[in-house]
């Protein structure tokens, strides 16, 4: 538990010290949102709620894949061995997942603010939408952290990361898109309950799989 806390704090301090990475990601998010804005400013009324939802999730997906990809690919070679000697692989993956979850949530909400500011905010049920973003962030961070670990061990890892992660996150993404549509339409919450429970269940499965499988990647 103590090591978990230390590892998590270490990730956080490292991130805050070299601000270039996080500001780079923010810039990436901002540019994508701005491109969407510029493209659609040509004809303002063209952006229907469904187009908004598609643009939003595509932007978020790309930003998050880039964010999480760096969690293992960016690490220096020798540092792995050092971590290996001080902490069990389970603590490492859990600390990384928690950290990535935090980062993903922050980036998603920033993305949402940008989209609401630049395009418009079609969401009728904000609190439900926030819950959806949080659950999606949980699923993304759990599955992508493990895949980043796999990709980091292989050659040309950035391409591999994209290839491996897209199919994996689609099941999470399909449900979130569906719930987003419900949020846009302002449907009653009971309509989305079963979807959210399924999303939570998928998250649990994916997290458990990452937790169990990570030690085998780490050992090599």
């Amino acid at each position, binding site marked *: 538990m103590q090591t978990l806390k230390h590892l998590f704090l270490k990730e956080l301090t490292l991130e805050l010290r070299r601000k270039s990475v996080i500001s780079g990601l923010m810039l990436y998010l901002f540019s994508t949102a701005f491109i969407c804005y510029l493209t659609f400013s040509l004809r303002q009324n063209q952006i229907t709620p469904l187009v908004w939802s598609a643009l939003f999730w595509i932007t978020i997906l790309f930003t998050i894949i880039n964010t999480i990809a760096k969690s293992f690919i960016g690490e220096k070679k020798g540092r792995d061995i050092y971590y290996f000697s001080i902490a069990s692989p389970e603590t490492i993956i859990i600390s990384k997942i928690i950290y990535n979850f935090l980062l993903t949530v922050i980036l998603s909400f920033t993305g949402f603010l940008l989209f609401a500011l630049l395009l418009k905010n079609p969401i009728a049920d904000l609190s439900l939408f926030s819950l959806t973003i949080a659950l999606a962030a949980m699923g993304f961070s759990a599955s992508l952290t493990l895949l980043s670990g796999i990709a980091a061990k*292989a050659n040309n890892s950035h391409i591999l990361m994209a290839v491996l992660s897209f199919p994996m996150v689609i099941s999470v993404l399909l*449900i979130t898109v569906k719930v987003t549509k419900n949020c846009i339409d302002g449907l009653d919450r009971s309509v989305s309950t079963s979807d959210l429970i399924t999303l939570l269940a998928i998250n649990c499965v994916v997290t458990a799989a*990452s937790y169990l499988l990570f030690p085998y990647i780490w*050992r090599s």
Partner: protein
Amino acid sequence: MKTWLKILAVALIFYTIVGGFLFSVPRLNIVNETIRALYFHVPMWFGMVALFLISTIYSVQYLRNPTFNKDIFALEFATTGLVLGLLGIFTGMIWATYTWGSPWHGDPKQNGAAISLLVYLAYFVLRGSVENEDQRARLSAVYNIFAFCAMIPLIFVIPRMSSSMHPGSGGNPGFNMYDLDSRMRMVFYPAVVGWILLGIWIATLRVRVRLVNEKLLNLENE
């Protein structure tokens, strides 16, 4: 694989082909005679899931106790499963042309199946991009288990929650209610067993070819 299982597989598939085309089937609107596709389309998916399951089991065993053979088994069962999955998609597209009007309908189950095939295609990409043999085996075993976990919701959970034209989805009745009267069961269940056995047979053959090739390679190196 035991010889009697191979004979059983051939006999069952022969029976499926003859019975599937000749036995009488219930008359239903729209579906009509195309209901016979059930004997060929659905068993493909049963076969795919069974082979992927076997592949996953070999991957789990590989992680517990790594040996070269288990990796080859996992790989070849996944390959054969992928082939069955592709056949399942194609037979489904043919069936859809005549009942739904067009081969690709954006049905949730169709999309889910296509995505899960993508998941397994990524498995082969992963295998291709790792040089070191041990590492390749370990990473792909991990990915294989993960892929199986990701495939289950795509094929079995999400389509059932949204409106799909496949039976068992969005309140549609499942198999047992709508068509499988006892006449169809007589062909359908043997067909499932037959195609699964054939898939296992093909996979084990491929494993043997690969192991022999490996042996030859080792001899040449010596």
